[in-house]
């Protein structure tokens, strides 16, 4: 007799050798769940070595899926079910499994050789070390081969189908339909009918095994989440960023140019844009980070919507050029997909420790706009918004994302483009509308202080510009002391004025209370879930998630006043906290973590609770 239980949400991690197809298996599980109406969030966990030896811990590749009947905002703290295709996968991921959590293991792979590669002295399936978990031990490899014995494919192909067998098991376990995956298999291997047959047979065999084996005593249902009507797709942060720029370019009627140098975890933005030459995107892989941004500056000089993408160490190299873009007053978007630092740091791990660098990391008084995206799908809106501000105000904008949201994926309600992502105005000079007698490239817009965008090719407006200080009126080189001060003030004022053109800061929760949680960037998911949990417990806690950091929305100061305490969780040692405290004279506390890992919801709940009870 199998019990059927209903769950609010469930976290599953598929783990195996790099060659076991775990990314694909995880993606199939999440797609099926999304189509069945669950909210989802996913996160891939690749080894940092490209081709680590098979069977070793370094070679383990994982994919975590969080599905829910309620809103899901993170890939999940702890794992309800681990699928471990070999001993190394078990060893590398056991720590993330909840006590009494399920572990599906491929029994066939627990050979002496594999145990040794995973550095197990004894077989964990036999030595009692897993007694706190619920183990479903299945001969996945042999059963797959058995199930495919009538199908005309070679033995290597049969072995490769074992991930679908494991997927079939999880489908039965969580009441998923096989249909979406079957359709995908049929499309993917259209030209190889035997491979289609083999994969479908493995998937079904896995489901049947789970149904018939006594090891499975319960199945679980995760009902559809109450999700707004509309068309949905999955999107990861880097793809969303790339697409946001394509849309902005189209809406600004300015060609898109990206000058970039490969760096983890930002390279996928360059890869994605390189695919879209049908949109006229010009992608330039430069010889280094400096050439990346400098080519983008050149493209901006010549009238493109220019962007450059990087991560911490690359940002450090771009610093001087960012100053030039500030001095030139050019539209330019610089994306920093943050990773652990300093120096090379933790390239494949996430962190939020580049905020100070973005705000202050340049010589001279060098203000610019700093924004941060909050989740994978928000990268689209953020890239579009960063472009809008850059083009309207003739300023560089730094857009901060991070490794966690860049690689994480979630369902995204496909937006109504016309209403949400419409035309973008630029300062590009219309030669038919100007009076040549009075026009000057330093004549600013009265309201925004933005200079007009004059580009080579415009007849009669030829001008020279440098990184040397410019006369406020003529634009010519000036070393006049008072002029320099005026120019510094003007550049600062221009950025401050943008506060008039960004949405007011919103809160999740009441606009006054005992504790205000301030988060920014990629920690939104865990922060909002933690705050909601406390709100449900009756605590007077609100969340202020910041997207705009320089300039800040005009109402931030007034919000702070209405709370007795403030806590700022950050994946750094307190960078936003220092800024908020010094800017507004408050005494916000920090909850800080620099382990290369995202926040767990549970640790934030605990931290906020502690802050609430403190005297």
């Amino acid at each position, binding site marked *: 007799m199998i019990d059927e239980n209903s769950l609010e949400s469930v976290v599953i991690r598929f783990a195996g050798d790099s060659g076991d197809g775990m990314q694909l298996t995880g993606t199939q599980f999440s797609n099926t769940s*999304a*189509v069945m109406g669950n909210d989802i969030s996913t996160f891939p966990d690749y080894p940092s070595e490209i081709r680590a030896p098979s069977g070793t811990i370094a070679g383990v590749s994982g994919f975590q899926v969080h599905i829910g009947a309620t809103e899901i905002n993170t890939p999940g703290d702890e794992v309800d079910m681990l699928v471990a295709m070999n001993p190394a996968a078990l060893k590398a991921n056991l720590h993330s499994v909840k006590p009494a959590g399920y572990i599906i293991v491929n029994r066939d792979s627990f050979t002496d050789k594999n145990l040794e590669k995973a550095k197990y002295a004894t077989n964990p399936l036999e030595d009692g070390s897993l007694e706190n978990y619920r183990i479903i031990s299945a001969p996945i490899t042999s059963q797959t081969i058995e199930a495919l014995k009538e199908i005309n494919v070679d033995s290597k192909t049969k072995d490769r189908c074992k991930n679908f067998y494991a997927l079939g098991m999880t489908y039965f376990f969580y009441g998923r339909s096989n249909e979406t995956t079957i359709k*995908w298999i049929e499309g993917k291997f259209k030209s190889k009918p035997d491979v289609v047959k083999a994969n479908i047979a493995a998937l079904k065999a896995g489901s049947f095994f789970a149904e018939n084996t006594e090891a499975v005593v319960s199945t679980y249902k995760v009902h559809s989440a*109450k*999700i707004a*009507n*509309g*068309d*949905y*797709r*999955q999107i990861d942060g880097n793809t969303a960023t790339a697409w946001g720029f*394509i*849309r902005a370019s*189209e809406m600004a009627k300015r*060609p898109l*140019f990206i*000058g970039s140098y490969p760096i983890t975890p930002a390279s996928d933005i360059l890869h994605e844009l390189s695919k*879209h*030459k*049908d*949109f*006229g995107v*010009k992608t*330039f892989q430069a*010889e*280094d980070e*400096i*050439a990346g941004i*400098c*080519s*983008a*500056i*050149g*493209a901006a*000089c*010549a*009238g*493109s919507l*220019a962007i450059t993408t990087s991560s911490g160490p690359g940002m450090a190299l771009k610093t*001087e*050029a960012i*100053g*030039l873009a500030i001095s*030139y007053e050019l539209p330019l978007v610089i994306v920093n997909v943050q990773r652990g630092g300093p120096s090379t740091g933790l390239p494949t791990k996430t962190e939020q420790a580049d905020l100070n660098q973005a705000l202050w990391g340049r010589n001279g008084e060098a203000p610019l706009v700093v924004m941060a995206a909050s989740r994978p799908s928000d990268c689209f809106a953020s890239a579009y918004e960063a472009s809008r501000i850059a083009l309207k105000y003739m300023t560089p904008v730094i857009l901060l994302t991070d490794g966690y949201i860049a690689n994480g994926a979630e369902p995204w309600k*496909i*937006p109504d*483009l016309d209403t949400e992502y419409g035309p973008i105005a630029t300062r590009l000079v219309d030669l038919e509308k100007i009076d040549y007698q009075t026009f000057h490239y330093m004549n600013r817009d009265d309201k925004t202080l933005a200079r007009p965008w004059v*580009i*080579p*090719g*415009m*007849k009669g407006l*030829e001008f*020279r*510009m*440098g*990184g*040397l200080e410019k006369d406020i009126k003529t634009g*010519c*080189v000036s070393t006049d002391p008072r002029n320099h001060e005026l120019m510094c003030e003007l550049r600062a004022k221009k950025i401050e004025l943008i506060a008039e053109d960004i949405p007011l800061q919103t809160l999740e929760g009441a606009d006054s209370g005992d504790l205000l949680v301030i988060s920014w960037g990629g920690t939104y998911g865990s922060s909002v879930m933690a705050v909601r949990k406390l709100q449900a417990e009756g605590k007077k806690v609100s969340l202020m998630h910041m997207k705009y950091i320089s300039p800040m929305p005009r109402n931030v100061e007034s919000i702070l006043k209405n709370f007795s305490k403030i806590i700022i969780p950050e994946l750094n040692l307190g960078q936003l906290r220092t800024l908020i405290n010094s800017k507004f004279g408050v005494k916000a506390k920090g909850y800080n973590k620099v382990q290369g890992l995202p926040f767990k919801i549970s640790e934030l709940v605990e931290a906020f609770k502690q802050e609430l009870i403190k005297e």
Partner: protein
Amino acid sequence: MSEACYTRKDFCSDQEVKWCPGCGDYVILASLQQALATTGKKKEDIVCVSGIGCSSRLPYYVDSYGFHTIHGRAPSIASGIKLSNPNLSVWVITGDGDGLSIGGNHFIHAMRRNINMNVILFNNQIYGLTKGQYSPTSEPGKITKSTPYGSLDHAFRPGTLALGAGCTFLAKALDTDPKGMTEAMVGADLHKGTSFIEVYQNCVIFNDKTHDLYANRNTRPDMTLMVEHGKPMVFGKERNKGIILNGLKLEVVELGDRYKEEDLLVHDKHNETLAYMLVEYSHPPHFPMVLGVLYEKEQSTYEHMMEEQIKAVKEKKGEGVFKELLYSGETWTVKNDN
């Protein structure tokens, strides 16, 4: 192709030129202005891009579009300008410090990419703007402010470096020869690809007369060889000297009883090996400094290939439609009844 009709004066900006009196940069500026008036390119389509250093002030003095950028990065910024708008005529102005030291990486990559732009390197073999330190082209042992006991560095030969990096047009000129320089610049403008012109330029303050042996009007004819494609390599005040190929070596010979003009090496600007030899052999007084267009090669430009690739993708996939991109891959519809 163009109706543009200019004189040199049309390219003089309203800015006062602020180089030291007697600086070689004045002649380079005038030669460039003369060349720009000759190329037929429209003024508004011309962009001068420079880095940092004395030479890099030049864009302020040319009445066209000009960008004075940051140290060493002019080739990168110029690349972005040209790729963004291939219709522009882009000139990179740099020096031996700017182009070969801090900007060495961008220099070599610009050479290999072959974006259609012209790089003029003012080689005075010294840092002028920072008041006299040795540069990557200074001779070993040079006594400067930062090397009071002599520099320990070996020098780059900019021409060899450029050829090694894959440059498709190499010319050399003297700041005392505006005519030769203007011709090299016009040739560079006609060349489709990255053109590199090295100009031997005198710094009157920190490295005066460093090029004097071959640059001054008296010794120049005997110390330099102006090569012309398809012409025998003759030089000398009396045009009585020439170059022959002896085995794998170049040799200076006297014309007379033993050697006639027809015995001399004929310049072939398409011969890359010869170009290397001419750069490397240039060692006055033992071998004349070779000037003029040393090398030229036809090769597709980067920006042309970039445009072609975009065209080809658009022809195959059709013009991108953003909504279709959003709906690409798997999508699903959520429809709640309530």
